[in-house]
């Protein structure tokens, strides 16, 4: 089996061959200059983001590290209302990484870029000694443009705003955890990794009164809502029975002692929107394939300031806090 060797990161012929044969054709890089020269980014405001992907295992039910790296950056741009345009990719490969796996990851990135309608325009590859990496790490950066009247930030959140969630929670985190630990569920729990830019585009066509928006990745829905509450200085109250938790996610969480509110997602968004546009917006989002389960899960209140409260299914209330670190499965 062909594997990545240290020489593939040397800057010499091996590296050039790797780039010419595997990277450039998949990513439609026309020239291999030191920088990509971009067009169409001069109008409006520019959004810029970067993220690194170290997920293990790199292939998991419903996705892989390559498409995750593309969609993750596309989604980060989309959450501020930007139209994602260009992406750069940096690879850190570990000596010995199978070339076939690299090809799979690259093809998946190319497909993902096409699906999300963005161009991968620049890249870098380094190879580290065996034992100094975990197969493959990917960094992606991206830029997009924001139209003039769009301003999405938690500081715009107002009392009475509604909290909208675009789909069921917990699928990505549980798919990774089940793959890591050889757990199987019936039906299998698949990662929800997906590009959210077209859903956001449809939302912003309906209204500009989207006050805050994020994709609840690491730390899950709970962490994102707590960030909104802290940043806005208001209270967010949500209802447990309105939050969709797929049965596989529920089962896995019960088994492992996890709370689905804190499990990672990669293909849903949570938005805080003006109450007068909520109904129209939810209706429009439901028409999009990634938003068909969209629903209102709660609202913004004045007090207690900076807190997230959850109304439980039996009518009690509890506080939703951030976790100090990872959720660790409990033992009994």
């Amino acid at each position: 089996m062909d594997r990545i060797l240290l020489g593939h990161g040397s800057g010499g012929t091996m590296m050039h061959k790797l780039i010419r044969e595997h990277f450039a054709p998949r990513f439609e890089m026309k020239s291999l200059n030191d920088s990509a020269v971009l067009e169409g980014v001069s109008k409006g405001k520019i959004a810029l983001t970067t993220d690194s992907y170290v997920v293990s295992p790199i292939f998991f039910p419903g996705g892989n590290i390559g498409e995750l790296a593309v969609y993750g950056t596309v989604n980060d741009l989309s959450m501020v209302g930007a139209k994602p345009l260009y992406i750069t990719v940096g690879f850190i490969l570990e000596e010995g990484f199978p070339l076939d796996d690299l090809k799979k990851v690259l093809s998946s990135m190319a497909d993902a870029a096409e699906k999300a309608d963005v161009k991968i325009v620049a890249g870098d590859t380094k190879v580290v000694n065996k034992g100094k990496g975990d197969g493959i790490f990917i960094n992606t950066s991206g830029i997009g443009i924001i139209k003039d009247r769009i301003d999405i930030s938690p500081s715009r959140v107002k009392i009475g705003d509604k909290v909208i969630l675009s789909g069921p929670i917990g699928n990505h985190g549980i798919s990774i955890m089940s793959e890591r630990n050889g757990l199987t569920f019936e039906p299998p729990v698949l990662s929800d990794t997906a590009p959210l830019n077209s859903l956001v585009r449809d939302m912003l066509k309906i209204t500009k009164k989207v006050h805050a928006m994020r994709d609840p990745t690491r730390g899950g829905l709970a962490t994102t809502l707590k960030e909104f509450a802290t940043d806005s200085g208001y209270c967010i109250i949500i209802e447990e029975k309105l939050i969709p938790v797929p049965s596989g996610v529920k089962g896995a969480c019960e088994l492992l002692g996890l709370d689905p509110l804190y499990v990672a997602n990669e293909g849903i968004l949570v938005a805080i929107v003006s109450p007068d546009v909520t109904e129209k917006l939810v209706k429009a989002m439901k028409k999009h394939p990634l938003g068909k389960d969209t629903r209102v899960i709660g609202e913004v209140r004045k007090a207690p300031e900076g807190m997230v409260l959850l109304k439980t299914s039996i009518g009690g209330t509890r506080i939703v806090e951030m976790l100090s670190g990872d959720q660790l499965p409990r033992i009994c």
Partner: protein
Amino acid sequence: MKDKRIQKKIKGLTDSIGKPVKLMEVCGTHTVAIFKHGIRDVIPKEISLLSGPGCPVCVTAIKDVDVAIAISKMNGNILSTFGDMMRVPGSKQSFFHAQAEGANIMIVYSPMDALKFAQENRDRKVIFFATGFETTSPSIAGTLYEAQKAGAQNFYIYSTHKLVPPALKALLDSGEVRIDGLILPGHVCTITGCRPYDFLASDYKVPSVITGFGAEDILQGIMMLLEQIASNRPSVEIQYKRAVREEGNPKAVSLINEYFEPCDANWRGLGSIPQSGLKLKDKYSRWDATKQFDIDIPDAQEPKACQCGFVLRGIKIPTDCPLFGKTCTPERPIGACMVSSEGSCAAYFKYGRRDK
């Protein structure tokens, strides 16, 4: 809705009892579930729910953590453990801190994973740090059975297993707090059944109900306790009938008894409790990490000012402690009850800090 009917019944029973009722949930999973479901919001104020000693991770003695870290730092050794042990502080550091300094520690989801790793890496010695109540000990015993069958030469168990009934007995013997009823741990009783708890009703006259973990389970468990209190007929009942049988799981119990025997054990925050731990029987000492690795470490002092001992005995609630939420947080836990996600202080911190 069924839970509304139960809530109504609870209200009626509380009125007829006519005085405050103190119930203790023994198990950490119950403490968390009570917060998660918002149970306190839907029961009368006359009923207070106290958290008992029931998180096996929390009560792991400081010295056991220290010894395990020392073992993990010995050449060629790998210590494997359940995830929620990682943050438990030893006298100087936790497994997480030791790992960051280069100690060989890995998280597994099952002791069988540790055994599998040992079989795939025969040049390493794999030590499984076994902690838990009766719920987890059968899986350790089952793993030992497999290790024995496979002739694994490089696999060891460090047992810090604890038993629930002796801890309850010690708690009631101390007489420090009046407990009107006990919400008994559903998971543990799937293994042991209810016989080991009979003494609660017969000797101590404390109403007891083995309860599940759903919102309705817990409300129903509370209702059954109130019925016992109102009629003054203490017994050990099972609410969690879909999982718990009176006789428990005899196969699992006999597996435990094959490999383990009771021993005196040190509980963090509570001290030594007679016959409240499980150690490997002498004939299996070949697998016993405490016998196979020569570690000499002094006894550790528990942090001063920490009120965990009182919290674990139901005398104080977490917010009574001066360290709570200030110097002692889930990120930097000082006391036993803050360390695991199912410790009572961690549950209060996460769900109920600013509770009414």
